[in-house]
């Protein structure tokens, strides 16, 4: 059994806005969501990179305590975007709880904020009379906390897939959700990812000399994917969710078709845990095309992983060039908000859906002087009004995990 899988709802909390209107405005006007790193009272003073892709606007969650008690900050993002997609989908309560709707959702490592509180308790507790680790601390911090807080809040009884593969977390969520519906295991899946404000992640990349440090005094000028002046990634926060549905049932119930997932490639480099691998990445891009049964010429736009690290962008450029030549427009969307870690795949897919619907492609921000080693691609250097029929969303993670999702424009999918 192979079924078509369409996207019928989406929502993203990003450093450049929450609702669709704000996000599109930021993309059209070249607004950055990168801000100065906030002091967290722990690691900040030891970190060289002083920038962060920040969600600094208020969000009215309105979750009752019965749900809040098992949620760390990361689950707030996750449940909010899941609530948005369920509300806008119009799915019935009967279907949501039927077992035919599942959840594929993850984060880089659960809630580091809560984990940090647990460790504080350990170290402060040595002279204390009581063991004071909260009954819910594990539920709030565990690696699958986003997925199961979503199932709990909405009474979802289908499958749970909780990928946790760093930067490919949410692209795997979408890919695995797509395959789950395509092969008939579920009729619909809420897919996505979230990551909260966290300086431990910044410290990790800072320690590996992978974080941006030269633009601390002007945060909006970094990251700079593919630019000769790039100096590393910027960590960010956010959440995103898409609702995937089997095409025929979505059509029958009159759902809006925002796009169609037509292919998914996923593999591992089988070696180094950190260095980007040209063979592995190239193979992933080809796997996605084979999965979609399309040729490279069919792809109009590539949302590149493009973290703005020195080698990562070069290797990705080589992979794109070898598979696609200089055909599709290429944009590094992290230039607007930094690297939202486990969320980046779903956010970049949602931004691509918005651009497809609106008929434009946003340029890579801060791409003033293309690095010669990345110059063989057709970079989007200015806002381009164009129709996009098929787009690729590429993401690569520590541990050597690579993903590529291929999506078709909603109007095309619906025709």
């Amino acid at each position, binding site marked *: 059994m192979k079924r078509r899988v369409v996207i019928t709802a989406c929502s993203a909390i990003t450093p450049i806005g929450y609702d669709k209107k704000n996000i599109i405005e930021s993309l059209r006007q070249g607004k950055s969501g990168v801000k100065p790193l906030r002091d967290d009272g722990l690691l900040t003073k030891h970190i060289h990179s002083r920038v962060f892709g920040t969600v600094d606007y208020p969000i009215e969650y309105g979750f*009752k305590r019965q749900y809040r008690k098992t949620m760390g900050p990361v689950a707030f993002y996750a449940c909010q975007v899941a609530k948005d997609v369920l509300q806008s989908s119009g799915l019935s309560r009967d279907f949501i709880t039927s077992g035919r709707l599942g959840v594929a959702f993850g984060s880089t490592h659960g809630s580091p904020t809560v984990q940090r509180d647990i460790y504080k308790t350990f170290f402060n507790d040595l002279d204390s009379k*009581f063991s*004071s680790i909260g009954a819910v601390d594990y539920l709030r911090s565990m690696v699958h906390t986003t997925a199961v807080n979503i199932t709990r809040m909405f009474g979802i009884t289908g499958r749970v897939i909780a990928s946790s593969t760093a930067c490919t977390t949410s692209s795997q969520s979408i890919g695995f959700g797509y395959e789950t519906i395509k092969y008939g295991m579920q009729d619909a899946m809420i897919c996505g990812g979230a990551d909260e404000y966290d300086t431990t992640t910044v410290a990790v990349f800072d320690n590996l000399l992978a974080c941006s440090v030269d633009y601390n005094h002007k945060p909006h000028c970094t990251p700079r994917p593919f630019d000769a002046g790039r100096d590393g990634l910027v960590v960010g926060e956010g959440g995103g969710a898409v609702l995937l549905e089997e095409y025929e049932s979505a059509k029958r119930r009159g759902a809006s078709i925002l796009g169609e997932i037509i292919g998914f490639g996923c593999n591992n480099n089988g070696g180094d845990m950190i260095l980007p691998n040209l063979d592995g990445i190239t193979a992933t891009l080809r796997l996605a095309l084979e999965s979609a049964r399309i040729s490279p010429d069919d792809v109009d736009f590539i949302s590149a992983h493009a973290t703005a690290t020195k080698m990562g962008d070069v290797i990705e450029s080589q992979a794109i060039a070898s598979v696609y030549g200089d055909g599709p427009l290429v944009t590094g969307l992290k230039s607007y908000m930094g690297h939202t870690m486990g969320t980046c795949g779903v956010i970049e897919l949602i931004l691509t859906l918005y651009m497809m619907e609106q008929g434009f492609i946003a340029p890579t921000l801060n791409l003033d002087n293309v690095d010669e080693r990345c110059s063989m691609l057709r970079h989007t250097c200015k806002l381009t009004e164009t129709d996009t029929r098929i787009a690729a969303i590429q993401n690569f993670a520590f541990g050597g995990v690579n993903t590529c999702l291929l999506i078709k424009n909603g109007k095309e999918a619906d025709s």
Partner: protein
Amino acid sequence: MTRDELKDKILTILTEDFEFEHPGLNDNLRDDHGFDSIDAIELLGKIEVILDFSLTRDEKEKAMEIRTINNILDYIEGIVNSRNK
């Protein structure tokens, strides 16, 4: 501590930390206020602070029979009395 003083402390915890609205002494904690086993564990931690000593595992397991606020008060008084014997 008198039963009234204990009642005031427990009601404060239930309204402020557990967000109970208009708690009644004989309300069913689960049915009327959504109080579940996770909440029970959290409440036991707060009861330890009130009593200023750690509860044993046996004492904690007995708390799982609690259904109402009056049961909570009886439970705490029972613990104190048994320790004072």
